[in-house]
């Protein structure tokens, strides 16, 4: 038998894929997480990644390709160390999101889903337009590896990207300390640090901007509350 070279997806990845399958009543449900897993290994979904999932799940490669090409988070070209997603949906765009995207695009010399620098190498950055990132009260927002950087300006965004390129990892406004694209893809696949301290250090990263708490804070300050809650029994239902 000919000697096979080190497989792209090693025993650990296979074990993780099997773990994912075990989480669902039907194996095919593991496909989306498994593709995130593939991205955590390769930084994108390649044909090998498609073959891998197809074999793990006993699907045809066409079936897997159909899924890969449907979802925007699966990158079909190698991603940078970091993925910078700028919300250019209407509200963010009106508040400066379009300008931010344009600024970054010009600076990096790349367009949507293109990478500046050698993909995967330190300091490489893939840029993308994002649809509404569900942080409109903090507009304009962008994400780096899906961690939020709120209330950006073209200048602050440029500074951020330059820092990323030089190997720094500026802390997000909300989220865990910045790692890299592959690292967060593993979490999206559903694998989090087992070790409590590491987990905590990530989970406890900030999440509440002033805006998030605006209403609650105001109510507390002004003494506004919901009506008092009193324990009442569950309604009686006639037995059928």
């Amino acid at each position, binding site marked *: *038998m*000919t000697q096979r070279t080190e497989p792209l997806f090693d025993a650990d990845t296979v074990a993780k894929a099997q773990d994912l399958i075990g989480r669902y009543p039907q194996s095919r449900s593991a496909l989306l997480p498994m593709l995130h897993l593939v991205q955590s290994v390769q930084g*994108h*979904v*390649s*044909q*090998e990644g*498609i*073959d891998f999932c*197809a*074999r793990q799940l006993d*699907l*045809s*490669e*066409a*079936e*897997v*390709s*159909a899924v*890969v*090409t*449907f979802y925007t988070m699966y990158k*079909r*070209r*190698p991603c940078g160390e970091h993925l910078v997603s700028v919300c250019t949906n209407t509200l963010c765009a009106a508040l400066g999101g379009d300008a931010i995207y344009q600024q970054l695009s010009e600076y990096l010399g790349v367009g949507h889903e293109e990478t500046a620098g050698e993909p995967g190498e330190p300091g490489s950055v893939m840029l993308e337009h994002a649809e509404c990132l569900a942080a409109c009260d903090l507009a304009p927002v962008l994400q780096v590896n899906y961690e939020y950087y709120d209330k950006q300006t073209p200048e602050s965004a440029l500074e951020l990207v330059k820092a990323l390129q030089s190997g720094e990892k500026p802390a997000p406004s909300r989220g865990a300390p910045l790692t890299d694209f592959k690292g967060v893809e593993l979490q999206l696949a559903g694998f989090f640090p087992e070790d409590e301290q590491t987990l905590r250090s990530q989970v406890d990263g900030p999440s509440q901007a002033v805006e998030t708490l605006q209403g609650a804070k105001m109510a507390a300050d002004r003494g506004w509350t919901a009506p008092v809650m009193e324990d009442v029994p569950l309604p009686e239902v006639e037995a059928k």
Partner: protein
Amino acid sequence: MTMAPSEKGTAPKPEDAVPEGYVRLTIDGEEVIAPKGELLIRTAERLGTVIPRFCDHPLLDPAGACRQCLVEVEMGGRPMPKPQASCTMTVADGMVVKTQVTSPVADKAQHGVMELLLINHPLDCPICDKGGECPLQNQAMTNGRAESRFYDTKRTFPKPLPISTQVLLDRERCVQCQRCTRFSAQIAGDPFIELLERGADQQIGTAETADVLDMASRTSSGQPFQSYFSGNTIQICPVGALTSALYRFRARPFDLVSSPSVCEHCSSGCAERTDFRRGQVMRKLAGNDPDVNEEWLCDKGRFAFRYAGAADRIRRPLVRDASGALRESSWTEAMRAAAAGLAKARDSRGVGVLAGGRLTLEDAYAYAKFARIALHTNDIDFRARAHSDEELSFLAARVVGAEGVTFASLEHAPTVLCVAFEPEDEAPIVFLRLRKAARKRGAKIVHLGQWTTPSVRKTFGELLACAPGGEPAALAGLASHAPDLDAALAQDGAVILVGERAAEVPGLFSAVHELAARTGARVAWIPRRAGERGALEAGAVPTLLPGGRPVTDAAARAEIESAWGASLPAEPGRDTSAIVEALAGGSLSGVVIGGVDPDDLPDPELARRALDQAEFVVSIEMRPSGVTERADVVLPIAPDVEKAGSYVNWEGRRRSFDTTIENTGALPDCRVLDTLAVEMEADLFTQTAAAAYGDFARLPAYGPRPAFEPVSANGAASGVRLATWRQLLDNGSMQDEEPHLAGTARRVVARVSEAAARELGETVTVFTDRGAITVPVEVADLPEGVVWLPANSGDSRVRAKLGAGHGTVVSIEAGGER
């Protein structure tokens, strides 16, 4: 495009009370009674209102994707706020439906959708294969706007993409109705074609066409995904997006003449439509026959037809001259030579007849009659493959003249047990029905075989695994090791299907017979070749006369003798192997061979020797074979398209067809034999297929059947056992000249268990004292000590090279040094 089937028989009339299982509704002001569960689009169609549609297809699960079929619906007196897709909504009591005929809203909705479908559709009808028979084109004419309001940029794609070697895709023509993808996923179970991307970028494609880096140039580690049924996607595509590589740009629909026909490849007997131009078949399409193939064909049936036009086709009779060379001759000369040679051989030690499994009923009847009255022998057998006395006894006792198990009964069976039968390879349309039964009705399909084949997987089936040869024991022990299956077979409607390789396993027919008797399950025999069942009915076997009359039964014989006006031999004849042996051993002088390839016979080497030994050989065939070079006279005959006739499919259903291409001068076997018989002073009355059938049909009905004579199974032999059968797409000569088709044949591999594969490595050599086959190894869930090879694919020509078959003990070794 396919139209919904109209309801059979007489539908209840509106003034009648609503019968059980029906509802009353109003469509365009007219009251109708419709069966519960019927889709509005079909009910309307039965009323004569054709609602335009693209994604709807009566045999596919509804999708509601194209939105072309919108109508207005009122339920319980309340109008539904939005127009509804009539292809997804079922009729309900009191429903009021307004189609485009009476509803301006529905009409506008339909015009709106049509306009949207056209904005990105290219205006290339003049060069599109579908032009002239295109539902989109037709509906655009009747339902479209005269002028487009769209003057922005159309979506374009580089064209065309190969979806397989047979099917090409022009993405810009696609209306994304998803018929093709639904067909592949639902009907065939081969999701090789899928929707890719999304939104306006959505497109049909395969793993290879997906926009993933280097996908197109991939060296796939997985298996290239192929389907035996891909051609159907071409036929059901309502636009010219999917086209046939074979047919592309070769003809326009209006230049073609169409003729209904019947497929000549397997025993399913599919209805086809053959389109031809100037004497040449251009394409074949599936006919719509709900009882048999519904609207589907396998790719062999659809694409394998050019053998008839092969350059080497024998067009004139050949006669061996004094120097020993074959030379062309006139029919008169050839007939005289053949008749003289045969008469002489007959009168010396006799002549046998090997009729072959591809004959029409009429041709087979001519052979059967010719053997009896011109050659005075029962030495005739159509079985140009492994066979046994046990099989013949089974066919005589349970199969000939039998009716009852049909495609419909398979669809409705609670349980089907497949024994020594690989449905997808051997009878693909049976496979589709089994899959449908499992998918739609939850039927339990159990396969007694060696590994989890695609047929097992795609029928959601269960594998009952045994070593080749172990099948009888497996069936005999069913009650103890698979009591649930045993019980399931006792359910009403359960069926046992048994395939051609059962003849290679001693005791298997006996075990099937016994199981059926015990459980009450019905049994059907599904041979692989189109002509086998008909040949059996026609009496082209050594023990039976036409209509299943035992040769040895004096009364039965007398019926035939009086019908034919000749006396018949009373001794059972020799079967194929015995004929071959007798020729080789000199106890038979001559043979008439109809289109049989020596390599198909149980012992090809012996068969060649037998032909060499024979004093006189008449070969009746269309193209040269291993027989031609050994024949004294070669009589050319017509391919299917150039003659009329009928096949009897595995159900026992007669599938007749007319001549598609007239006046080619080619003669059917029955005519050739009729003339030859006249030369030998016998009258067959088979000048034409119609005459032959008339002669056959005039025979009085015959009832009794001989009892089955069971045979006991062999003990387990030691050594590696070979499991083998023929794959659908293989070296078969009727698939010659079809590179597109061959491109989707399955990879030629040997399959072994995981443990064996670990020892063998990547290549294996399977050998016997006759020869060796070296092929790549693939792992399957085979029992230990079993190797599987395709019987006649690529270099894996099991009969020809190994002289082996299913159940033979073979040797294996790693690598390919031998």
